[in-house]
């Protein structure tokens, strides 16, 4: 590992994993932590517990803002364990000089999103630091959820499962990149930032047999699939043309040389579902407006254990690796 921390170590990919394993897991090592789930399952399997810190530039972007993001992020981690988000904490670090009006807007959008989840903020903290000590505002939320279906885990996926996506991928990453770099486009591109609990609840209510769920945040779908392949010791084979990608996201990827599968999402999740329930799960998801392109994208095999294989429409295949490095545009 490098001697000083680099931006690549916060990418949700390979360098990030190395940092977590070699520094944090090493010090905090315990059975619950080592399960590496989106949220820790505690209290005899009754509760899910998770935390997340948020820093995004710009603070307000097409489709959401840092406030909505801060609630969705933690609530989604809970929902991915089959839990209903119940109680959240909210800590903010604010830079001196930050406009109160912006803060009000951010908190208002947090409130709105808490209502979607049926969760409440029960504790909080604020710190104000001198100008330059943080970039405008950092928010941390920690949440507790009540597990409604036990046993959902990224460590239990088998060849009886198929892999699904709830919607088209890469919208959040593409939106933020375009906004940050001042790329102006005449398009409907906006972040997918959204609370996932309603979708999870619909699946549970329909009695769908869910093996695992994970929201594809930093590192994108590529990171989730690779984490699963390793955690469950399986091979995941994905058909590239079945991964839904909007024309807008494809366009950004073309211009800048990105892969949609490596772009961050904030309301997109990957599911491992028992084969016999897969078609019904797609049906349930499609009832949500944002999930029009939900579908099965791949299968679980034993071809190359711990690896993800991407298959093209013309019969070739390659490994889909965990994204690495800082997301940078290509040169020529």
């Amino acid at each position, binding site marked *: 590992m490098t001697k000083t921390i680099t931006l690549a170590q916060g990418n949700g990919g390979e360098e990030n994993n190395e940092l977590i394993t070699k520094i944090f897991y090493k010090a905090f090592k315990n059975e619950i932590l080592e399960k590496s789930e989106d949220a820790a399952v505690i209290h005899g399997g009754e509760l899910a517990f998770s935390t997340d810190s948020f820093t995004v530039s710009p603070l307000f972007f097409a489709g959401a803002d840092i406030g909505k993001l801060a609630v969705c992020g933690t609530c989604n981690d809970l929902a991915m364990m089959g839990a209903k988000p119940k109680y959240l904490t909210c800590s903010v670090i604010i830079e001196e000089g930050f406009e109160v009006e912006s803060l009000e807007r951010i908190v208002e959008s947090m409130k709105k999103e808490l209502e979607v989840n049926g969760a409440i903020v029960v504790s909080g903290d604020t710190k104000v630091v001198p100008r330059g000590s943080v970039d405008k505002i950092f928010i941390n939320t920690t949440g507790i959820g009540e597990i409604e279906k036990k046993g959902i885990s990224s460590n239990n996926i088998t060849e009886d499962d198929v892999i699904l996506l709830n919607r088209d991928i890469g919208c959040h990453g593409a939106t933020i990149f375009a906004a940050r770099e001042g790329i102006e486009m005449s398009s409907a591109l906006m972040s997918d930032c959204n609370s996932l609990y309603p979708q999870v609840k619909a699946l549970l209510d329909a009695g769908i047999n869910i093996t695992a769920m994970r929201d594809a945040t930093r590192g994108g779908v590529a990171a989730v699939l690779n984490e699963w392949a390793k955690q469950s010791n399986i091979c995941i084979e994905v058909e590239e043309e079945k991964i839904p990608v909007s*024309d807008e996201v494809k366009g950004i990827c073309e211009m800048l040389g990105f892969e949609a599968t490596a772009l961050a999402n904030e309301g997109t999740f990957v599911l491992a579902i028992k084969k016999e329930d897969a078609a019904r799960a797609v049906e349930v998801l499609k009832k949500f407006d944002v999930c029009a392109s939900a579908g099965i994208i791949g299968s679980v095999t034993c071809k190359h254990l711990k690896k993800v294989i991407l298959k*093209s429409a013309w019969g070739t295949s390659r490994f889909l690796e965990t994204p690495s490095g800082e997301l*940078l545009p*290509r*040169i*020529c």
Partner: protein
Amino acid sequence: MGLELKNLYDDFRDANTIKAYAKLIKEDAIKLSKTINIMEVCGGHTHTIMKYGILQLLPSNIKFVHGPGCPVCIMPKERIDHAYVLSGQENVILVTLGDMIKVPGSSGSLQDARSKGADVRFVYSPLDCLKIAKENPTKTVIFFAIGFETTTPMTAALLDTVVKQNIPNILLHVNHVTVPEPMRALISDEACIIDAFLGPSHVSVISGSKIYEEFPRERGKPVVVSGFEPVDVMQSISMIVKQFVENKCKLEVQYKRAVSYEGNMKAQVMIGKYFQKADFRWRGLGDIPMSGLRLKDEYDRYNAEKIYDAILPKQPIDDHKLCICGDILKGKATPPECSIFGTACKPTNPIGSCMVSSEGACAAYYKYGNLI
């Protein structure tokens, strides 16, 4: 309906067209008496070949040698050190293009310099330096210019604006290189196995296809200037195979939708105004005479390499002795044959040039496997 971005690539990724070319290439290749080794010079082509699994569609007697056409990969360590040293100067903002900030020199990468407090930025267009310079009038903006013929005109355009508007706080550190010289150097090596070239096409959008004429005419190596989509590359391979079947040796352009014989004359004039040919030391290939560009002497006052001459390291730095990038570039070896490939040398810790950028041969092999 207007033209949308997807119109530019959708048809060129069509599965049926790709399969049809695969069939055609197979049928023609049966007629060949020997194996054909094609070098794709450009890293963009390497990327396409690996990403779309093109090698899996080819018969066993059509092979690829992955070339040196990635501007980041060919940058020798001592020049990366120049950028590193410059970024550490007081009141300097070092600006460069994308991937360059990831490449480690002898004391670290520009990313490392940034994490230690240096002001390092990447831009999409060199002209973005104008905005940075305007916003930071008390600082010196140094543009670390890299790239082949494709990116040179943009650097020239930046300097043109700096000169005409008399902007006092922009300097250039020029590392531009050109394509024909390394191609010539590679085939001059007796052990080189290259039979034909897939010609870089964005280079030819600027310089025209004329720059490759010498290779079929004087060196007996066919060249097909190819686009970057999988259909483009498959069609170009088919054109090369056809030349061998028909016993021809010529320059052809597959990427006709963008490349002309003469190229972009306006860009060529602009380059000629500010730059002149110079020797360049290529990472992995060594010294190649007249393969680079430098600022003409009359523009010394904009030349960061001259202005900061006293503090810039001069000693050439070679790659680790276990690294076989030079042999890989000549087609003498493939990435998996290297003893440190994927073990000591990885994209997160590149030891040799070909592992540096996603367009380098080793990085492409590592990323996309090509093992299936």
